[in-house]
């Protein structure tokens, strides 16, 4: 949009002018609004009588909708018609205000610029933009209004909601009967503005007993969602749990209880708290001590929480360890507890070991961080790193972890491999994949596929000899060749090419190996020995057509071009 300079200036002037006129308090403004509304509703009378009026004229004789009219409308004081008439006299002074010369200095525009103290502060823009301001301000007039009433104190639910929506302070105290309150809530919900819905809910929460509030909200899902989120935000866990309990939302109840553990920093306390999420029996015998851990003080204790669970008969299936919601999630929380319990033991033990400085592994590889609150896989990695050889009986041994948490084979091998490779303990790596069958023969087997093994080894900068061994175990030939090329396992590439009788590839590869190296010799040997090879015959002919040197150069440049 292109604004001419004049437009712009007029815009700013007009906003200044507005600021000038309305340099009063918000409250007063809202009162002004009332009178306008009163007049508006009066307008409806006129409308009813006369549908096709030509020009709407207010009592002061000005066309309805002109700027000065609207200013006076908003400047009016009270809502009653009688007072409205009185106001008219005062309004004249306003129109003279409006005709005051506009300030000419545009130095500090902003000092005149009014913030959004009244709805639609940007109206001022449109004032200017429209060519015919006289025709404005109509839509509100066109709105059908209910019967005329005194607005000065009693706001109807819809007016109250509208005021709230505009961000005005508005007392809700007059909505005392349940019916009024619910009407107000429904009006708010129908407006879709979440802020207003929450405002009404805050009021309802304060003025209704929770049983009534919950009961009514149960049928009003939109409002209910707002209340739940509001309670979450202000951290009213007690009411939230009451609410979930009322609604029978066991899963959300437990999860919201479980969520609290994130706020507990101390690992011991956290562990104890997690225990409250899973163990009912111990909880009961140990109630007093766990109560002190419960973060919501004494008034709402775990006792209530537990009794609720009992009452809901959730606990009939829960006397041992299971949780009141899906068995699966309860198992996860159980695992969480067990894991943290383990970590606390391991951490205490290892910190001691590290401080003592007697254990080689800790001296060589000091721990970078505590293992507390780490995921299971990280814990497994840690124990594979520091406690690999330990007997199954110890808490920190990898095998023990694997058994306790039923870690799948794949996952275990992957993690152990990463840990041992990092330590460059190639023997362990070897042992990880070696299986003995009943005849005593050994065989290499990897549940994750040897191509992954190779990648992990390479990432941990394993020496070529080790890499080579595993690359050659990759089953898929193409993958094998790719990996071997990528990781410069020359022997594997050469052998594979030989097995494939792929002379061309071998030739190409020749340029990659160092000049005069053993590999080059090997390639040359293969190339020359296989001259009579049937498979290679055709390729060989092509090759012979080119002088060796040129071909060599060619492959090199091609390679450089494509492979960088």
């Amino acid at each position, binding site marked *: 949009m292109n604004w001419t300079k004049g437009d712009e200036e007029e815009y700013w002037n007009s906003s200044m002018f507005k600021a000038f006129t309305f340099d009063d308090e918000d409250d007063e403004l809202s009162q002004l609004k009332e009178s306008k509304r009163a007049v508006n509703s009066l307008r409806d009378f006129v409308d009813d009588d006369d549908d096709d009026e030509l020009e709407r004229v207010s009592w002061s004789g000005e066309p309805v909708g002109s700027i000065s009219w609207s200013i006076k409308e908003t400047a009016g004081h009270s809502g009653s018609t009688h007072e409205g008439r009185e106001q008219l006299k005062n309004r004249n002074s306003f129109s003279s205000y409006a005709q005051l010369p506009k300030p000419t200095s545009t130095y500090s525009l902003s000092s005149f610029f009014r913030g959004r103290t009244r709805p639609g502060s940007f109206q001022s823009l449109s004032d200017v933009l429209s060519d015919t301001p006289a025709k404005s301000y109509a839509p509100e007039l066109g709105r059908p209004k209910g019967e005329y009433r005194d607005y000065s104190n009693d706001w109807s639910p819809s007016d109250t909601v509208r005021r709230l929506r505009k961000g005005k302070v508005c007392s809700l105290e007059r909505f005392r009967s349940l019916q009024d309150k619910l009407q107000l809530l429904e009006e708010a919900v129908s407006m879709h503005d979440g802020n207003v819905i929450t*405002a009404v809910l805050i009021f309802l929460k304060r003025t209704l007993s929770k049983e009534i509030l919950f009961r009514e909200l149960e049928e009003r899902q939109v409002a209910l*969602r707002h209340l739940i989120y509001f309670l979450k935000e202000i951290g009213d866990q007690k009411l939230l749990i009451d609410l979930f309990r009322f609604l029978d939302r066991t899963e959300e109840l437990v999860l919201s209880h479980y969520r609290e553990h994130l706020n507990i920093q101390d690992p011991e306390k956290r562990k104890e708290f997690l225990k409250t999420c899973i163990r009912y029996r111990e909880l009961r015998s140990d109630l007093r001590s766990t109560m002190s851990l419960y973060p919501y003080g004494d008034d709402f204790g775990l006792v209530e929480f537990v009794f609720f669970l009992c009452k809901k008969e959730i606990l009939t299936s829960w006397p041992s360890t299971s949780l009141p919601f899906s068995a699966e999630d309860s198992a996860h929380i159980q695992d969480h507890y067990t894991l943290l319990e383990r970590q606390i033991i391991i951490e205490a033990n290892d910190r001691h070991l590290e401080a003592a400085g007697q254990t080689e592994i800790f001296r060589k590889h000091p721990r970078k961080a505590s293992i507390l609150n780490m*995921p299971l896989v990280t814990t497994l990695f840690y124990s594979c790193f520091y406690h690999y050889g330990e007997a199954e009986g110890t808490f920190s041994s990898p095998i023990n972890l694997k058994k306790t948490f039923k870690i*799948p084979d794949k996952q275990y091998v992957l993690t152990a491999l990463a840990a041992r490779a990092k330590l460059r303990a190639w023997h362990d790596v070897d042992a990880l994949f070696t299986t003995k069958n009943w005849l005593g023969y050994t065989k290499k087997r990897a549940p994750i596929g040897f191509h992954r093994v190779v990648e992990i080894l390479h990432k941990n900068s394993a020496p070529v000899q080790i890499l080579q061994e595993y690359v050659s175990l990759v089953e898929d030939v193409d993958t094998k060749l790719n990996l071997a090329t990528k990781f410069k396992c020359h022997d594997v590439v050469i052998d594979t090419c030989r097995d494939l009788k792929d002379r061309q590839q071998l030739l190409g590869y020749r340029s990659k190996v160092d000049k005069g190296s053993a590999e080059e010799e090997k390639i040359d040997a293969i190339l020359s020995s296989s001259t009579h090879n049937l498979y290679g015959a055709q390729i060989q002919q092509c090759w012979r057509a080119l002088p060796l040197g040129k071909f060599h150069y060619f492959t090199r440049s091609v390679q450089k071009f494509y492979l960088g």
Partner: protein
Amino acid sequence: MAFPHRPDAPELPDFSMLKRLARDQLIYLLEQLPGKKDLFIEPDLMSPLDRIANVSILKQHEVDKLYKVENKLVLSSNEQLCFLVRPRIKNMYYIANLVKADKLAGRTRKYKVIFSPQKFYACEMVLEEEGIYGDVSCDEWAFSLLPLDVDLLSMELPEFFRDYFLEGDQRWINTVTQALHLLSTLYGPFPNSYGIGRCAKMSYELWRKLEEEEESETKSRRPEIGHIFLLDRDMDFVTALCSQVVYEGLVDDTFRIKCGSVDFGPEVTSSEKSLKVLLNADDKVFSEIRNEHFSNVFGFLSQKARNLQSQYDRRRGMDIKQMKNFVSQELKGLKQEHRLLSLRRCQLGMRGEVTVPPADAAKGLYFPRRDPWLLVGGGLLWSQMGKSTSTFCLKIFFLWTIKRHPSRTSNVSSLFVILADIGACESIMKKKTKQDFQELIKTEHALLEGFNIRESTSYIEEHIDRQVSPIESLRLMCLLSITENGLIPKDYRSLKTQYLQSYGPEHLLTFSNLRRAGLLTEQAPGDTLTAMESKVSKLVTDKAAGKITDAFSSLAKRSNFRAISKKLNLIPRVDGEYDLKVPRDMAYVFSGAYVPLSCRIIEQVLERRSWQGLEEVVRLLNCSEYSFAGMWCGGCGWGCHLVLVCQCGAEATDPTDMTKEDRASSESLRLILVVFLGGCTFSEISALRFLGREKGYRFIFLTTAVTNSARLMEAMSEVKT
């Protein structure tokens, strides 16, 4: 590259006015607290603030020191404190603690809280409860629209997504309607409205109400923007969850574009310092590559550099007059560039961080006053010779050029942008090859097309087992779930268990969130719902069927992606290679494998000017009640908005007062405002820009925030990383 718009494509309105409005309002608010004051800024507001004001403006209005609103208390000695915050409960507690501490110490100060974009009653309640209600004064800074680019307006409200789509809180709807109202006030009414989604419908209704209440003058204005389209993010999660391969999207995925600018780290700039680059249409090179498929970009940059090199070579033969011409042309650009540069310097200064303006970014380098392209060319030559654009190479190059041509001027910052672009390309390439990007994309495409589901599942499994980024794994799981209408219970269990083991048990909460938002669900045992649903819908009228579908969907929110995809032909049939250099359709933003669902819906509706013929799609989207198309009635002078087609075009009635010509003229307006509620991705923006070029439209994007898959997942994540 950078296809021009059709000659009949309309001009975009000038949105810079929005910035000025916001700035002036802020200044006004600051002046409400005369005298010296310290300003506490919410971290999330800093970048948007950077885009409209700078430190010197704040200083001019007696802002003394700037602080971040953080968890730790700051000791400020000023007598007046001003807080510029988002309306969040935790900010209120922060302020309350500060005020209470002052009270304890017997200190009296003036406090002012400015809420942006609006204040919430819940916040005031907290202030009241904490006993500081009268001690602080509250104000609102209605800064809800930030023009990030010529055609992109962002509300910078990433929390919209979680608040609405997870928690079901409608607090931002009013903000959206206020923004729409502002736009219609400034740029004229929008004659045609369409929308889909529950939130879209609500926003639309509230907005109409607002327009009726506010005696706005819009109706007497000639409309500029012909159509407005509101769309809920949950209509199309799939597109948002895909890896982006369009350049701008890819940069966003890799480096995170924040508020229209990106921080290139040392790995891109090849120096220790990071470089902040503004990415928008002002940057000529960027605007040419932003919408391109990534595979084209690097080649394009090299080509560009080579062209310029030859241009430069030609220039060497210029005589004095030509030289003068050239310099004056160059200077014109330079002025602009210089302004940008100083602006940037201010912005950077404002952040209070140690980032340096681009001019100093490569410290130790003397800037040659020369054609930057030559330098870029040099850099590229180096990179083509197999070396990366390392500082060292450039240094030599700079020195060499300075020696030879000390007198010429140059566009320093554009040089850096290009260098950064090239660096970004290289860095992306490195990352993407490292991450087996190809394999990832392959899996995604398989998921979109619905084949090899087992293979994809085990791919995801492996991702999780290897502890590849938690967000990435989550994203793939969600993609699998949505495209497959939920995971098979067995898969769901095993993936969930492995996920919790790999990334931490507390993600249990994340899974619960994802299920509530319908992003990651478990298939209901037996697929009885579908059969029943379709039977029922055949029997009863559309309206009732919609209700029934909704009832079902609340039980198990079905995404029906496969059916929708078939209906809307989202997976283009490709014979042979899809030429990404000459895109045929919007699918190019996903390498030709998938047309973004959201964009396809918009395209279809715009084509028909209604939802007619799309009833089935709407039903599959579970939106029978929430799709609408309306027409603003210009003739009657009341600015009333007649909802023409609701319930899938069943009840189309003509507005009486609207003449045929009026309708025709309003429909012929080719400027279209697309409102994404819950965020949109750069891929979607690129796709629609492409559509615009094809059809002679211009799209304007209004989004609650620019998003991508990672942001969506993080919003759902309970564990803050």
